[in-house]
């Protein structure tokens, strides 16, 4: 299992990216998808996922559709145009962050240092 602290900061970009790929998803589906993609190495806890989804919804980055499925109502989330724009920025930030991390942890630099 990956370090939860490392994972925490990446939660929102992960949600936005999954929704970009899947068009619309419901909460439980997102947790399953992350487990599936990472072969169970990463786990989004429900206590972190829903506050993040509600925050993104409140910020107008996600839109909600309610659909009756089986014998209950299901809440689907999808990206709004602002959500798509935000995802682009967040992916750029993420890319820059990973580059910086590589520079810090790159053994060649350590050796040179």
């Amino acid at each position, binding site marked *: 299992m990956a370090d939860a602290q490392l994972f925490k900061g990446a939660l929102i970009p992960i949600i936005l990216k999954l929704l970009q790929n899947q068009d619309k998803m419901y909460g439980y589906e997102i947790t399953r998808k992350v487990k599936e993609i990472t072969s169970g190495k990463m786990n989004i806890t429900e206590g972190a996922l829903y*506050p993040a989804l509600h925050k993104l919804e409140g910020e107008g980055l996600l839109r909600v559709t309610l659909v009756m499925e089986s014998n209950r109502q299901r809440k689907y989330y999808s990206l709004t145009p602002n959500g798509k724009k935000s995802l682009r920025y967040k992916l750029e930030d993420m890319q820059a962050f990973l580059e910086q991390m590589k520079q810090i942890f790159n053994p060649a630099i350590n050796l040179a240092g």
Partner: protein
Amino acid sequence: MKITLTPGQVEFLFDFVRRKYVRYYDVQSELVDHLATAIEERLEKDTNADFHVALALVYSEFGLFGFSRIVQERETQTQKSSRKMLWQQALKFFSWPVIISTLTLTVGGWLILSTLEPVLSKNMIYFTWVILMGWIYYRAHILYKQRPSKPLLALETSRANIFFPFFYPEVMFVFSTHLHLGWIYFFLVIIMMIRLAAFNSWRNMMNTSRLRYPAAFS
């Protein structure tokens, strides 16, 4: 084998979520769907598994604080969205077709009042304020009677805006003896616009909620 929970089991989950202090139906329904889907998945993997045991395991995945953090964040976000809706409604008074009638009524009203005796014009302002407040609260009362049988967070937050941003300071202000009548009149118009915007956003939320959560109104 595909397993779907029975309506009785889904109702049990609603009851379970309510017992965990999730009061609002719109929050409950999302959590119930999550619990139900996770339980169904467990029961599909192990057909001998017990529904109640599966529920306990699925609920434990919500962590130490259970649903409380989810409810708290949902309330914060709903309050923010509701305020946003209120201001969007208020801004409609400043859109071109409306701004002309708002200005005409405001300036026209003041021109009439300024020709009257100060005591009379002050009484006219009080009278208008009482009538308008009464009219808004009467309409709010009629709308309140159409509320859902199961409480909805978005709707209750939106209703609370009717009393936003101030009620008692407003009364003190309107009946102030120190302020110039022109200021009282001006702020009264602004306050009435906010009240009307709050009412309109609550009414819109009622219509949206009826479409989104018909089960809450049954």
